[in-house]
């Protein structure tokens, strides 16, 4: 089975973003495939790329020194891994492990930030798309605290 090449414009995050931003970002996007069990990122490592998940499932895990690791969310196609790469001091705050064969496009953080810095309008539009991801994750976490699956 051959995989269809991934394109930034096919991902929900960049859907109809307009302008020529994708023309600039396209060439720097690196396609990666992770087998089941493979780590995408590790807690504490420098967050050096913006990861867009196209297919598969990634478990986000919290690592605690005295307890077994706990998966607190899984994300799938159409979602993005996180935002640690954008905010200093930049280490990943979670482990991310593929629980299904996962395909991604990954943009190197320094290059992506450089482009967004010099193109404020695109930078603003980018943040407007990233913020809802952060907000939804925050709300989900709050709701998860409310134990809605418990009785």
């Amino acid at each position: 089975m051959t995989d269809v090449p991934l394109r930034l414009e096919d991902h929900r995050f960049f859907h109809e973003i307009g302008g020529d931003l994708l023309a600039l970002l396209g060439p720097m996007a690196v396609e990666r495939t992770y087998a089941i069990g493979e780590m995408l990122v590790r807690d504490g490592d420098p967050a050096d790329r913006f990861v867009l998940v196209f297919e598969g499932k990634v478990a986000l895990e919290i690592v605690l020194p005295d307890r077994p690791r706990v998966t607190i969310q899984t994300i799938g196609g159409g979602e993005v891994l996180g935002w640690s790469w954008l905010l200093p001091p930049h280490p990943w705050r979670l482990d991310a492990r593929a629980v299904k064969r996962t395909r991604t496009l990954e943009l190197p953080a320094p290059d992506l930030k450089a482009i967004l810095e010099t193109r404020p309008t695109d930078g603003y539009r980018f943040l407007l798309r990233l913020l809802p991801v952060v907000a939804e994750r925050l709300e989900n976490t709050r709701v998860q605290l409310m134990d809605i699956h418990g009785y």
Partner: protein
Amino acid sequence: MATDVASAHATAVPGGSPWVPHPFRVERRTTETVDTMTLVLAPRKGVRPISFRPGQFNMVYVFGVGEAAISIAGDPAHSETLTHTVRSAGKVSAALAQAAPGSTIGVRGPYGTGWPLDQAVGKDVVLVAGGLGLPPLRPALFEMLRHREKYGRIEVIYGARTPKDLVYYDQLQDWRSRKDLRFQTTVDSAGREWYGDVGLVTARVPDIRIDPAQTVAFLCGPEIMMKFTAQALEARGVTDSSIYVSLERNMKCAIGICGHCQLGPEFVCRDGPVFLYHDVRRYLAVREL
């Protein structure tokens, strides 16, 4: 406003006091999780089996301890036995969870309104269960799969705290492998042994394949879960006149006389427990109603 959520008040032995429990023998007890058991009951001699509609409940009685309102979790087409899944929480449910095969449990019922399957005919159906919200939905799923051709797509989303809290574990595998429905399971947190989804049931809603204009949803679980799930469904275009919820309140009588189960004007035991979300959301929105 009123939809056809008809109710049935048949008791195992007609006439006489509505307070009398009838003896049923525990045929089987299965451990679902560390604190949840499934009991299969059969009527003792002289007691009529209780036929019920999906979504209804019984008042289940332990001699010397008391009664609790428990949803009927079995297949309505096989009402020669009654299935109840019980989580050990209070003194009655703790006693039920320990009931040994061969012992006797009292039952009176069935009570309440059921899931309006007639409203779902010809439509896509979404069932969303949170925690112990799956048992009350299970009879509806049995019924729909028995008459599969009557319904469009069937999407089930079941959320629990951890993989160890999933009930009907073996049956989940059966349901997940069927081609005529999509059964998604998600948990709040898991260890490495879990390769499924982790997250809220609401996170599954954007991906279900339904025609929102021709969809009916049945939700069951903690009220807060139903509220957020309804919100996610409404974001997909499913209106609150197509969403049904199963509510729970303190019940002593199940016949609308003890007064405990009232939510605004509704007696949850008699006007519910299944309600059209459109009709009850205004009451659920008031603090401490």
